[in-house]
């Protein structure tokens, strides 16, 4: 089963304060309009748009952080989202102070800076410095490679979700290691898209296999737990992990040795274990 195209599986709590604190500006827009006060109307309209726009930007920054923590990388490009969000909100409060409250520019500037500080302190500074994650795979110029990597990332995400339904610390650890290996392999491909041809079958067969076996086990062991099933699952996980390590080594060595042979072996084992 291919990874479902549900891109927003990971729940993210948005910057709620930035959504509801500027709400008084909403009636202000209509009141200024009714009164025919153009400056107040435009200032409150632009300010509200900027704060909500800033909230949207900040939410992207938060989402990126959450994805990186959970999956090891993010499909969102590395941009200073929260900084941009804070700046937008800062410009908004500065604008209101200057044009609606008619305070001096120095005060407007101070208010803007305080807002920026508020956003960065509340939601954190953008994590742009996660080493290899800066080279986000989706920045690759090759659209096909980007799609393949995105699909693979969604499969890793599914494996991660299924793993959380398996309440066995030892198996969870194994799955986490497999996912970490998979992320490393994806990062290697992103670094050198030319090797994707060699890794294509790996991405399709291995990750599919790992996803199916994990989801299948999570489902079955909940309904009818069995020692034999757990042992089979563990064996498959060991094989998958070993092969992932080997794949990563060969990809890094740029060793064109026939990877397909290994994949055939794993596929056969997955079939024998009744996984695919």
């Amino acid at each position, binding site marked *: 089963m291919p990874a479902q195209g549900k891109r927003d599986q990971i729940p993210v709590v948005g910057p709620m304060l930035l959504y509801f604190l500027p709400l*008084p500006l909403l009636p*202000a827009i209509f009141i200024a309009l009714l009164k025919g006060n153009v400056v107040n109307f435009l200032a409150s309209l632009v300010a509200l748009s900027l704060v909500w726009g800033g909230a949207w930007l900040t939410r992207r920054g938060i989402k990126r952080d959450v994805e990186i923590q959970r999956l090891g990388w993010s499909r969102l490009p590395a941009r200073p989202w929260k900084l941009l969000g804070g700046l937008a909100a800062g410009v*908004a*409060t500065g604008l*209101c*102070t200057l044009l*609606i409250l008619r305070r001096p520019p120095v005060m407007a500037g101070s208010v803007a800076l305080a807002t920026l*500080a508020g956003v*960065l302190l*509340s939601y954190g500074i953008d994590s742009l410095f996660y080493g290899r994650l800066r080279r986000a795979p989706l920045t690759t110029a090759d659209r096909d490679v980007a799609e393949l990597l995105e699909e693979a990332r969604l499969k890793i995400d599914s494996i991660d979700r299924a793993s959380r339904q398996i309440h066995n610390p030892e198996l969870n650890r194994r799955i986490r290691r497999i996912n970490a290996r998979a992320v490393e392999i994806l990062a290697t491909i992103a670094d050198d898209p030319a090797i994707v041809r060699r890794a294509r079958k790996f991405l399709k067969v291995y990750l599919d296999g790992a996803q199916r076996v994990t989801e299948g086990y999570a489902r079955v062991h909940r309904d009818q737990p069995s020692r034999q099933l757990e042992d089979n699952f563990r064996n498959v996980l060991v094989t998958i992990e070993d092969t992932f390590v080997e794949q990563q080594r060969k990809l890094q060595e740029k060793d064109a040795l026939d990877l397909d042979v290994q994949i055939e072996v794993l596929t056969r084992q997955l079939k024998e274990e009744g996984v695919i």
Partner: protein
Amino acid sequence: MAKRPLSVLILRKSVGSLLLWGTVGLISLQSFFFVIVR
């Protein structure tokens, strides 16, 4: 990302929220009243 003590995190978020309430919240509310009055 290096793990920081929970107390530092709570303090940071509290100061941040306070600044947001004091700027975005207060300025919006004041703007609302100013728009009504003027």
